[in-house]
């Protein structure tokens, strides 16, 4: 049997978009081998209500684990039950999102099972005994084809690469008890601080407007936020120069040591285009750059460059984008 176990990541009682991406990738693998997709859904009592969305994206079975100790992430207990389910289920592969949560859980589960793992995968295929994964290495400057021998293979999937595809399945719900007492975990999340309110996360946003030191002062980031608002579906990012100076929180940083993003459109505002920044955004589909230095390295990767002062160009661009989006 070649069933696939997919971890359906939720936060605050609802599924995250990466959960549907994980199910979609699992469906593709399972279809290639004639197996089933089993989604693992862990949360506080009531999380089971999310099962239908998982079924709608290709889960044959939804394994639901509900317990008050899963109100916040509970990595020890989640890893323990994922490993137990994996042992019982004889899975070919276990998929997680390469999110902060998935990247934390997946290596724990792989170590418990004594199996191989590869992270941040952009493509996946099963060939005979080997699971083959495409894995960016060297800060995205190289692409490796990695083979994992043995079952189950543990994989985390790069967000925004496996577009969720509706594919209705039975989604038979199977309640599973936690392994041991999830209230007894040594590592305890005491608090979840929601940043950015209802705003789009950098990993989910189709458009990112990112600002650099060329904005001169923290308060000029208002211009970046206005452009993001004009797009309507945009998140705001920043360079390390800017997060170091405290103009923006560290969580907004894009690059080698920040977030890796790949939106449909990336607008780089007053950003020089240092290699460490490019490492986090160079796979964006379309890149626009505004910089007053025509030799700035960002123009080497920008599909559309404007040489000019951001403080002058941004308001005009914002107005033009707002106009273009009228009626949306």
């Amino acid at each position, binding site marked *: 049997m070649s069933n696939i176990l997919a971890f359906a990541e939720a936060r605050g009682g609802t599924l995250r978009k990466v959960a549907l991406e994980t199910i979609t990738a699992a469906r593709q693998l399972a279809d290639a081998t004639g197996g089933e997709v089993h989604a693992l859904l862990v949360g506080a009592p009531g999380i089971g209500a999310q099962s239908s969305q998982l079924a709608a994206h290709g889960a044959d079975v939804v394994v639901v684990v509900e317990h008050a100790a899963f109100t916040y992430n509970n990595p020890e207990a989640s890893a323990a039950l994922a490993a137990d389910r994996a042992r019982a289920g004889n899975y070919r592969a276990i998929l997680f999102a390469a999110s902060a949560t998935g990247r934390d859980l997946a290596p724990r589960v792989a170590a418990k099972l004594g199996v191989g793992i590869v992270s941040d995968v952009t493509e996946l295929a099963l060939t005979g005994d080997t699971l083959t994964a495409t894995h960016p*290495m*060297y800060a995205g400057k190289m692409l*490796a084809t*990695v083979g994992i021998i043995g079952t189950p293979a543990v994989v985390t999937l790069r967000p925004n690469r496996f577009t969720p595809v509706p594919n209705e399945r039975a989604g038979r719900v199977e309640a599973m008890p936690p392994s041991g007492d999830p209230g007894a975990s*040594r590592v305890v999340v005491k608090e979840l601080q929601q*940043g950015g309110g209802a705003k789009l996360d950098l990993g989910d946003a189709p458009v990112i407007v990112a600002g650099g030191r060329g904005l001169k002062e923290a308060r000029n980031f208002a211009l970046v936020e206005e452009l993001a608002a004009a797009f309507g579906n945009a998140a705001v990012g920043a360079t390390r120069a800017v997060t170091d100076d405290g103009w923006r929180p560290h969580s907004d940083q894009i690059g080698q040591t920040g977030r890796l993003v790949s939106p449909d459109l990336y607008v780089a505002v007053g950003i020089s285009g240092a290699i460490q920044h490019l490492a986090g955004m160079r796979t964006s589909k379309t890149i626009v750059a505004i910089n007053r230095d025509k030799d700035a390295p960002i123009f080497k990767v920008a599909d559309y*460059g404007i040489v000019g002062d951001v403080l002058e160009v941004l308001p005009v*661009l914002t107005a033009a984008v707002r106009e273009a989006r009228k009626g949306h």
Partner: protein
Amino acid sequence: MKIAVCIKRVADMESRFRIAPGGKGVDDAGIKFDMGDFDSYAAEVALQVNEKDGKGEIVAISLGPDVVQETLRKALSMGIDRAVHLKCDAVPFDGLAIARVLAAELQGGAYDLILFGKMSLDSSNGVVGAMTAELLGLPCVTAISKLDIAGGRGTARRELEGAAEIVEFPLPAVLTIDEGFARPRYPSLKGIMAAKKKPLEVKAAQLGEQRVTVGAMALPPERAPGRIVGEGVAAVAEVVRLLQTEAKVL
């Protein structure tokens, strides 16, 4: 406290990488190597924890060929007390194989804290810390950007996408370090001199079976060369038109 810091020697990511003969890795020729970025943050965190405490010992551990001793000396020159070189021919890609060697060394070492970088940028895998913690059966918090230790317990902050978690844990524990801490210190001249006399122990590493291997290495597809549309506000209308008609993102 007794603290271990696991340090990997990695290529400078600003290098221009070429594919090695055989097609399964990158060519080391002409490339500079140094301590991994996040590992240097881990070293800094260890130093600060013990500076605050006023006592303790920090041990840097690295698995790799003889050249990793250079990186361990750098750690010693930052102020770390002693180093252990786990010697092998080449560092494998398989995170579990690495974690097993590190866990065997760390086991029984009576460490209060074991620190890792959140990720080594060459492997870009980010798994060895949490895997080692599992093998040792220790509590583990990954990718932390803040840390407080008091009374045998720790509190850490982890950045999530658009949120953050405040996490509590007992010691001994394994932590993997993200950015957010003070910049790693540069070795002082005095530190460099002192490092020469600090103990660096070499042990043969027993690398087990490897099930995860790089079969092929490629350069990512090149982006089309950049294009400057125009200057100043006069270029805005054309860029918006191109976003609508050519890129179709507006």
